[in-house]
C-alpha cells in the first residue's frame, strides 16, 4: 500500500471539496489480536452475539455520558461542521464529514433508542446494526483524530470526538479493537510507557543523553530518574527519550531545570505522559494509565508535577487528571482519595503544570537568559496542537494555551511568523496523525489528513521563507516528520518549542 501513497494536490484557493463517495472505504486499521485484546480485559475476537452486546453497550454509554446522549439527540443536520474536518478535506469521502461520521452511530441510535426510528426507520435515517455497519464503524471511527475542530463550529457544541470514542469503546467491548492503540495501552500497563522501554534501558538512555549534552555544551545537565524527595516530577511522552526531534525538547526541559537549579526527576515506573485510554474512550483504561502518575507522585513525594510537550497528554493531564487521579486542587475535605495527594502538592503552583507554563513563568520572573541569535538560522512558525488548543488551557486566562508557547518562542528567537489565522488558535488543523492513528497501516489517511496544514505551511514558506515548524506535541512531531516529505518539505523542519529553548538558553549565566 505504502508504495502508492501520494499527497493530494493543494487546492488552488481553499475551496470546499466536492464529494467522492466511497473514496476511503476499506477494512480500516489492523485489528487487535486476542493477546492484545485480552490483556486489556476485552474479548479476544468478535463475539458471537456482537449485535446484542453492542446495542447493550451503547445503551450503557448513553446512560453514563451526557455528552453522547445529548449529541445523539440534538444534531439538526445544519452542515456547519461538514467542511471543517481535515480528513474530509484531504479525502473528500463524505463519511468523513463530522456530521456524517456521527450519523454512522446516530442512525443506529435512532433505530434502537428512539420512537420514530423504531416506527419509521427510513423516514428518519435509522438503520439496523448489521455486520456491514460494524465494519464501517471500525473503518471510519479510525479516520477521526478526535481533534474537536468540528465542535468549535457546531451551534450545539457537538463534539465528534465523543462519538468516535463511544464507537471505539463499543467495538472494543465486542472484541473488535484496533491493534495500534490497544497494543500500546497494554505496554503501559506492563512496563510503564508506550514504547515498552524498561527501567534499566531508560536509565541507560538518559545517561547517554547526559554525556551527549556534556559533549555539546561542556555542562553537566542531569536527567535524574526515581529521585525521592525531588521537587518536580516530569511526566513526558516516552518518544522524548529517543525519537527525533523529540529528544531535543527533552534536552531543553533538562536545561531549564538545570539553569534554575530545580530539583526534578523522571519516574521509571511512570515514564509516559501519553494516555491512549482517551483515544479508545474507555474510562477504566484512561484511569488505569493515569493512576501510574499518582502512584509515582506519592512514592517519590514530589511537590509539583510538570508535563512535557504532548498534545493529548496535556488534555488528559489538564482536564482529566484531577478527576481520575486527584492531581490538582479543590477536592472536598472528605474526599480521601484525592486529598491524600493534594495535601502533598504545592498549591502555589498549578497542578499539573505544562512545561511551557513552567518555562514561561521562569522567563517572566527573569530567572532565565537567552542568546536569541542562536536561533537566527530558523524562521519559525507555530502549529497549535489540537488537544492543547481545544481541550485544555495554559496560564490563568482562556486562550493562554495560544499565547504562552508563542511568547516563549519570541523570547528565544528573533524570527517568528504566523500561519493563516483560519488555521491557528482554536481553528487549528490536526496534524493528521492524532487520536490513535499514528500507525503505518493508516499512512494513506495520515498523508491526506495533513493536507490543510501543509497548504498553509507552504504559504509561509513561500512568503517568509519559514524553515522551522514548532510544535508542542509528540504525535505532531512524529506525524509531520513522516508525512512532510510527501509534500516536498524537509522532514527536519519540525521541532519542539523546547528545542528552540535548548538552542538559546544560557547555562551557568545566572
Amino acid at each position: 500500500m505504502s508504495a502508492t501513497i501520494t499527497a493530494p494536490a493543494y487546492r488552488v484557493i481553499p475551496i470546499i471539496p466536492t464529494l467522492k463517495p466511497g473514496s476511503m472505504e476499506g477494512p480500516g486499521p489492523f485489528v487487535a489480536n486476542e493477546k492484545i485484546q485480552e490483556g486489556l480485559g476485552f474479548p479476544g475476537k468478535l463475539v458471537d452475539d456482537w449485535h446484542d452486546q453492542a446495542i447493550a453497550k451503547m445503551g450503557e454509554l448513553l446512560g453514563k455520558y451526557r455528552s453522547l446522549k445529548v449529541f445523539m439527540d440534538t444534531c439538526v443536520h445544519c452542515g456547519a461542521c461538514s467542511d471543517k474536518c481535515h480528513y474530509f478535506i484531504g479525502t473528500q469521502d463524505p463519511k468523513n464529514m463530522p456530521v456524517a461520521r456521527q450519523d454512522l452511530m446516530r442512525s443506529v441510535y435512532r433505530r434502537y433508542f428512539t420512537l420514530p426510528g423504531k416506527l419509521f426507520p427510513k423516514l428518519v435515517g435509522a438503520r439496523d446494526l448489521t455486520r456491514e455497519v460494524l465494519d464501517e464503524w471500525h473503518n471510519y471511527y479510525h479516520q477521526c483524530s478526535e481533534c474537536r475542530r468540528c465542535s468549535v463550529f457546531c451551534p450545539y457544541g457537538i463534539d465528534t470526538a465523543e462519538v468516535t470514542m463511544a464507537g471505539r469503546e463499543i467495538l472494543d467491548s465486542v472484541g473488535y479493537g484496533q491493534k495500534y492503540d490497544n497494543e500500546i495501552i497494554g505496554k503501559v500497563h506492563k512496563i510503564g510507557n508506550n514504547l515498552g522501554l524498561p527501567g534499566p534501558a531508560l536509565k541507560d538512555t538518559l545517561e547517554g543523553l547526559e554525556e551527549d549534552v556534556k559533549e555539546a555544551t561542556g555542562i553537566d545537565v542531569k536527567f535524574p530518574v526515581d529521585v525521592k524527595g525531588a521537587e518536580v516530577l516530569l511526566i513526558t511522552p516516552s518518544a522524548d527519550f529517543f525519537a527525533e526531534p523529540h529528544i531535543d525538547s527533552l534536552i531543553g526541559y533538562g536545561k531549564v531545570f538545570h539553569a534554575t537549579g530545580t530539583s526534578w526527576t523522571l519516574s521509571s515506573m511512570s515514564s509516559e505522559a501519553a494516555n491512549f485510554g482517551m483515544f479508545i474512550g474507555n474510562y477504566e483504561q484512561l484511569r488505569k494509565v493515569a493512576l501510574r502518575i499518582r502512584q509515582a507522585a506519592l512514592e517519590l513525594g514530589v511537590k509539583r508535577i510538570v508535563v512535557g510537550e504532548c498534545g493529548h497528554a496535556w488534555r488528559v493531564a489538564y482536564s482529566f487528571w484531577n478527576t481520575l487521579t486527584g492531581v490538582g486542587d479543590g477536592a472536598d475535605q472528605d474526599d480521601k482519595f484525592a486529598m491524600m495527594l493534594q495535601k502533598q502538592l504545592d498549591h502555589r503552583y498549578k497542578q499539573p503544570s505544562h512545561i511551557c507554563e513552567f518555562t514561561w513563568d521562569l522567563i517572566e520572573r527573569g530567572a532565565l537568559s537567552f542568546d536569541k541569535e542562536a536561533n537566527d538560522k530558523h524562521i519559525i512558525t507555530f502549529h497549535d496542537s489540537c488537544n492543547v488548543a481545544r481541550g485544555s488551557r495554559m496560564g490563568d486566562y482562556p486562550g493562554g494555551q495560544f499565547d504562552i508557547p508563542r511568547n516563549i518562542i519570541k523570547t528565544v528567537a528573533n524570527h517568528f511568523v504566523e500561519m493563516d489565522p483560519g488555521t491557528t488558535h482554536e481553528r487549528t488543523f490536526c496534524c493528521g496523525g492524532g487520536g490513535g492513528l499514528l500507525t503505518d497501516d493508516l499512512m494513506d489517511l495520515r498523508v491526506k489528513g495533513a493536507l490543510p496544514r501543509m497548504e498553509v505551511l507552504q504559504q509561509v514558506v513561500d512568503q517568509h521563507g519559514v524553515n522551522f515548524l514548532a510544535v508542542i506535541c509528540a504525535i505532531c512531531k512524529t506525524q509531520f516528520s513522516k508525512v512532510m516529505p510527501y509534500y516536498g518539505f524537509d522532514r527536519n523542519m519540525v521541532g519542539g518549542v523546547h528545542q528552540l529553548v535548548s538552542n538559546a538558553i544560557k547555562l551557568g549565566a545566572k
Partner: protein
Amino acid sequence: MTGILFAILFYFATLMLVVGTLYRISVYTRTPAPLKIPTTPAPITTGGVVMRMMREVFLFESLFKANLWTWAAGWLFHASLALVLLRHLRYFTEPVWHWVVFMQPFGTYAGITMLLGVAALWARRIFVERIRYISTPSDHLMLALFMVIAMSGLVMSFVEHTDVVAVKGFMLGLMNFDRQKLPSNFVLYVHLFMVAVLMMIFPVSKLLHAPGLFFSPSRNQADNPRDKRHISGWAKQLESNETGVAR
C-alpha cells in the same frame, strides 16, 4: 364536530410536548458528565459560562464562525419564529398584555421573514452537495412543516382573513375547559393541524436541539478542572479502594 377533534388534538399535543420534553430534560439532567470537556478556550467562571450560553442562544455564535450563509438563514428563521410565537400570545391572553399588543405588526411581518429563512435553509439542503448528502427525509419534512405553517398563517393575515375573535374564543375555551366553536376555515384547519404535529414531534425529533443546547457539556462547563475536582457518581465508585493505586 371539527372543533371537538381539534380540541382533543390540542390537548393531546400539549400533553406530548410538555410531558415528552420534561422527560427528555430529566434524562439529560440525570445522565452524568464524568469528564470536563468544554471546548476551549472556554470561560473559567459560571458567569462566563452563562454569557457563552447566551451568545449561543441569541446570536448563534458558533454557527456564525462556521458559515455566514447558514448563520444568516438560521438566525433569520429563529428570530422570526420567536417574534411570531410571541405575537400569538394574544390568542391565549385576555386582556392582551401591552407589549404583546405593541409587537403585533412586528410579529405579523416576521411571518414573511420566517418564510424566507425556511426557504433559504431548504435551498441549502437541496442545492449544496454536502448538505444534500446528510439530509434525511425527515429533515426535508420538518422544513415543509414550517413552510406550511408560515404560509397558512400569512394567508390568514394578508389574504383570506379568518374570524380571529372566534379562534381566540376557542383557544381560551381550551384553556378553561369550556368548549367553544372553532370557525370553519380550511386554511385555519391546516395551520392548527400542522402546529399540533409540530408540538407532538418536538420531544422525539431533532427539535430537541432547543433544550439540548443547555445540556451540552462542551458549552455548559466552566474551564476549571485544575482548581476544582470534578467527579461523577459512577466514577467515584471506582475509588472504593482507598488509595486507588494500580498495582
